[in-house]
């Protein structure tokens, strides 16, 4: 009885059921990728509103941490830095660490902090943590530029290995994203998560070679120590950035890559399973 052509002709059919997916619909998410970009843009635009230094904080945070470490550990305590200038050693470490830390934290609270939108309209939920990841990638670019300047300033430009450095950043962010997916799901259900996570991250900070060289760890603990994927990543990242740092062990790189992929798949799967449950709880 309507005079209009059927608007729905040929439209895709969406099945709404109580079935639990075991993996997020990544094709659907990809179709909506612009939304992740928009959300990331929003994060970037909003974050430093009403601060004086604005986006300079992105570089200032790792620089401040580097400054403190250099002063206390490098100058006063003479902590080993694997033969590199301590400031450069610490800067490479804190740069990667800050990015890792931020991705875990931001993706971790992303779902709960977007609850106002999530409860009002549907879109592939995985785009919310994805936007947090994207934000962190953009955040890393100026830090990256600063790192290159620093290696040049110290006359430690590594040459070709620098081409591999993005791969290490990528691995670190993927791993952080995977952890963040777990956190965001658990956080939506138990708000305790956001209180525990900073402490856990602090622990990880201490058992990773951010402020001391891995050679400081006694030989009998080295195996165990290298189970922490950040150890291999930081080694690799330093090697790709600073001439004179030792290359990472092959096994530890394989371990990092394998673990990143496994954690990402597991994280996405957990996200897909719990997403619907979490939405009712936030």
């Amino acid at each position, binding site marked *: 009885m309507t005079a209009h052509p059927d608007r729905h002709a040929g439209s895709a059919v969406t099945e709404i*059921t109580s079935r639990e997916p075991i993996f997020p619909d990544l094709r659907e998410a990809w179709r909506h990728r612009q939304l992740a970009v*928009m959300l990331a843009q929003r994060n970037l635009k909003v974050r430093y509103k009403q601060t004086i230094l604005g986006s300079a904080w992105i570089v200032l945070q790792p620089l401040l941490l580097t400054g403190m470490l250099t002063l206390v550990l490098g100058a006063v305590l003479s902590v080993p830095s694997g033969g590199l200038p301590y400031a450069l050693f610490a800067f490479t470490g804190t740069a990667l660490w800050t990015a890792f830390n931020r991705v875990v934290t931001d993706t971790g609270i992303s779902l709960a902090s977007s609850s106002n939108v999530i409860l009002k309209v549907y*879109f592939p939920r995985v785009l919310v943590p994805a936007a947090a990841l994207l934000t962190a990638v953009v955040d890393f670019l100026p830090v990256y530029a600063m790192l290159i300047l620093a290696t040049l300033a110290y006359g430690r430009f590594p040459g070709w290995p620098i081409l591999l450095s993005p791969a290490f950043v990528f691995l670190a962010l993927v791993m952080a994203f995977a952890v963040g997916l777990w956190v965001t799901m658990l956080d939506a259900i138990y708000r305790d998560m956001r209180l525990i996570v900073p402490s856990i991250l602090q622990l990880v900070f201490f058992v990773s070679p951010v402020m001391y060289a891995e050679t400081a760890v006694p030989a009998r603990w080295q195996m165990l120590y290298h189970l922490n994927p950040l150890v291999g990543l930081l080694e690799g990242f330093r090697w790709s950035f600073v001439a004179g740092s030792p290359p990472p062990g092959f096994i530890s790189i394989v371990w990092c890559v394998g673990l990143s992929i496994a954690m990402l798949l597991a994280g996405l799967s957990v996200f897909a399973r719990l997403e619907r449950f979490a939405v009712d709880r936030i």
Partner: protein
Amino acid sequence: MTEYAIEADALGKRYLLGEDASRTRVRQAMQALLPRWRSAELQDLWALRNASFAVESGEAVGIIGRNGAGKSTLLKLLSRITVPTEGRARVRGRVGTLLEVGTGFHPELTGRDNIYLSGTILGMTYREVATKFDEIVAFSEIEKFIDTPVKRYSSGMYVRLAFAVAAFLDPEILIVDEVLAVGDASFQRKSLGRLNDAARREGRTVLFVSHNLQAIRTFCRRVLVLDHGSLVFDGPVDEGIERYMRAVPGLIDLHKSGLKDRLNRTSGVVRFTAITALDQTGRATWRFQSGDTVRLRFSYEVLEPVRDLGFLLMLRAAMDGQQITTIREPLSERPQAVGQTGTFELVLPNIPLRPCEVSIYAALGYVDCRAFYDVIDANVDLPLLVIGSDTIDTYARQGLVSLEYRVQPVQPAAQVQA
């Protein structure tokens, strides 16, 4: 043959009520240790159960029911915001969901940024927003402030911009919840007009939840009536509204109804506890004939001491929010003690309203009504006063009020000299 746009098959949604389920065990342990430890009982609530229906493409379907009947749950299930506990549904085509005005708006961002952000969140592509950008701005009438952060907007500007974004969505299925309850009368007219276009001229499939029965009547031919999570009626609009009205209780108990909503707006130190509409004979009803005497009986309770008490009643045409009349009445010049309760009746003799639906807005406040303690309206589920008429006068449905008038013959001699 028209295919279905929406097919719902025994849809059901269960929510866990009460506090955090994750705390149940802790609570149980605490209760065992300390008998006086009080906690909310944890229970299931079927917000919706066994809802089956089908909507043809191009159909506009209204959904009515009292607060908590499951209307919003149904919309959330069909728009995939939440997932059913049981049953299934098939939805064919792109769905646009408008459950609130300004989804995704960020106060720190400018109007321009928010148009892009909200548009993308609501399902448009960046390119679509860019193409429609000028139209959206024009529709919102806030050109001058487009590069101002929306936190500096007046609430009217905010609502206009937010609605403008939504108005340019291009979904095959539009799911709309009570968004039109915000804004002033002219905004409501505009947004209803837009919705009407979407349903009638553009042939979109529309699911529309509203307390505005007149609006539902205007652009839906079919209505679903929900009651306590069940679909109790599916059919022609007039019959459905009739059924819904019949189910409205004569006495509205306001102890719990919409308390959160009320406390958001006002202090709640004095609260309405009940409202009833009575006819001349004292029978509770919300339906009257033009010319009937309408008695509105209000009960209230004082929860914190106040120095005086006043009452305000506003009657509005449900269709477009136009004010019919406002009544302000002091109840007491003297301080009111905690625990004091009262009941009063407002009598409107021979109500001169033409057939229409009247929404009630009632408030308790200072004796001079400068500030309010409690406000109740459709948001807390107050029913509408339905005014009908037996007269065969076709003009009786035009206009809101019948003024008293008479026609008198004028003798030629009495004519005014030119």
